[in-house]
């Protein structure tokens, strides 16, 4: 992590903290009434809490190896007063910002593959537009139920899905050969170059239609689905799958984010504190990676998703409002 990036993040944190404090001071005598806001708290309290919560989500997301969006949408959608439309808009921006920040480094080192990403991202980004339009057209209750079910499905996937460090691909499929979806990278841990190629590209493309729709509909990002498809189905090495998946989110989430933005579902007051909170939390998370217990963090992430998924499902069903 470059020092300049850390400094930039620290300055951003300071500025936003100062501005929130200033706004809090300015409004300290004018607490908005319960009847007006649906909350006894002043207007600035929720964005301030959101900033703190997303900071911790950023830490947990890095340590748990998941994207910020998959934690952000169900948790903020379930426990904050913001409508799910705005939460999904912010969730997409959070996932997008994380992918944009990671993209240059992943591409420069050759860990992410542009040639692997481009055909899949084209399918997924077109599908994400459809998903975003469907998501914004459906009633919030229906989206909550579908979101809850999806999050609980992700928990199941995290329990059951195996990972393969270097999947064996005997022969690249004709489509991936034609598209030259292959490459070589240097694996630091193994201290050797790894040649890779992929197969089952057509099946992968079909699955990315569904992944794109879900990314757009729920504003989740989709790393949780990208990685298994790239790694287990198509046979890309795990590190290439994770890096390419992260980079792909910058393309797929862009198309869905535009739909939310154009429909008025991106509010700066929700999006910006979330984005800065997640990014700062991610910086801290990266530093904590060396000392954190991976299995413990994984359990915490699964627990959080289980709670948030159940909350979304029960909220959608009208059982836990």
């Amino acid at each position, binding site marked *: 992590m470059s020092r300049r990036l850390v400094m930039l993040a620290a300055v951003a944190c300071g500025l936003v903290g100062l501005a929130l404090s200033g706004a809090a001071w300015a409004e300290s005598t004018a607490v908005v009434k319960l009847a007006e806001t649906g*909350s006894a708290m002043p207007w600035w309290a929720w964005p301030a809490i959101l900033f703190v919560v997303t900071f911790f989500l950023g830490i947990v997301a890095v340590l748990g190896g998941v994207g910020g969006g998959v934690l952000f949408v169900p948790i903020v959608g379930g426990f904050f007063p913001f409508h799910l439309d705005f939460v999904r808009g912010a969730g997409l921006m959070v996932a997008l910002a994380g992918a944009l920040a990671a993209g240059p480094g992943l591409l420069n080192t050759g860990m992410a593959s542009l040639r692997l990403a481009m055909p899949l991202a084209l399918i997924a980004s077109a599908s994400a537009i459809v998903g975003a339009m469907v998501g914004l057209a459906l009633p919030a209750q229906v989206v909550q139920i579908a979101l809850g079910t999806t999050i609980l499905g992700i928990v199941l996937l995290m329990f059951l899905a195996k990972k393969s460090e270097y999947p064996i691909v005997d022969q690249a499929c004709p489509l991936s050969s034609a598209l030259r979806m292959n490459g070589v990278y240097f694996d630091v841990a193994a201290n050797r170059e790894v040649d890779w190629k992929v197969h089952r590209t057509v099946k992968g493309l079909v699955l990315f239609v569904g992944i794109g729709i879900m990314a757009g509909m729920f504003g989740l990002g989709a790393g949780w689905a990208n990685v298994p498809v790239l790694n287990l189905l198509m046979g890309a090495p795990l590190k290439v799958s994770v890096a390419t998946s992260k980079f792909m989110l910058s393309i797929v989430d862009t198309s869905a984010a535009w739909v939310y*933005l154009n429909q008025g579902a991106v509010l700066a007051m929700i999006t910006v504190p979330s984005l800065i909170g997640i*990014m700062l939390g991610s910086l801290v998370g990266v530093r904590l990676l060396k000392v954190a217990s991976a299995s413990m963090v994984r359990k915490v992430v699964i627990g959080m998703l289980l709670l948030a998924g159940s909350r979304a499902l029960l909220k959608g069903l009208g059982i836990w409002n």
Partner: protein
Amino acid sequence: MADISANGKQYASEEQLAYAAVLDWGMKLGFVVLVVTFVLYLVGFAAPQVSHEQLAQLWSKPVGEYLKATHTHTGWTWVAMIGKGDYMNFVGIVLLSGVTVLCYLRILPIFIVARDRVFTAIAVLEVLVLVLAASGILATGH
């Protein structure tokens, strides 16, 4: 300068490095603009179109109701309100959302020169998809 792999060798292709350079530049610019405009918004440097108090009353409503209550239109109409504190933030958001199109436009000539027709077509189609999404003509709502 581009990062290279831990063993000092360059594994990324020309188009990949070109894409990364534009992405790096755009991402940093977008992030800085986003933070600065948000601070200006919070401290009240420019009056927002929707006051903080009104926003707090409406952020729990579906987007359709929010737009109706604030007399806001969808699409690129926000450009006309760029001087307002809340819409000022859209500059950073649009930079972050738009940088991918610039990245694709940057690598398109590389594919054309290399006569890589398939990836030229994929890049053109991706730009069209993103421009279509950004155009605001894909209307929806509750």
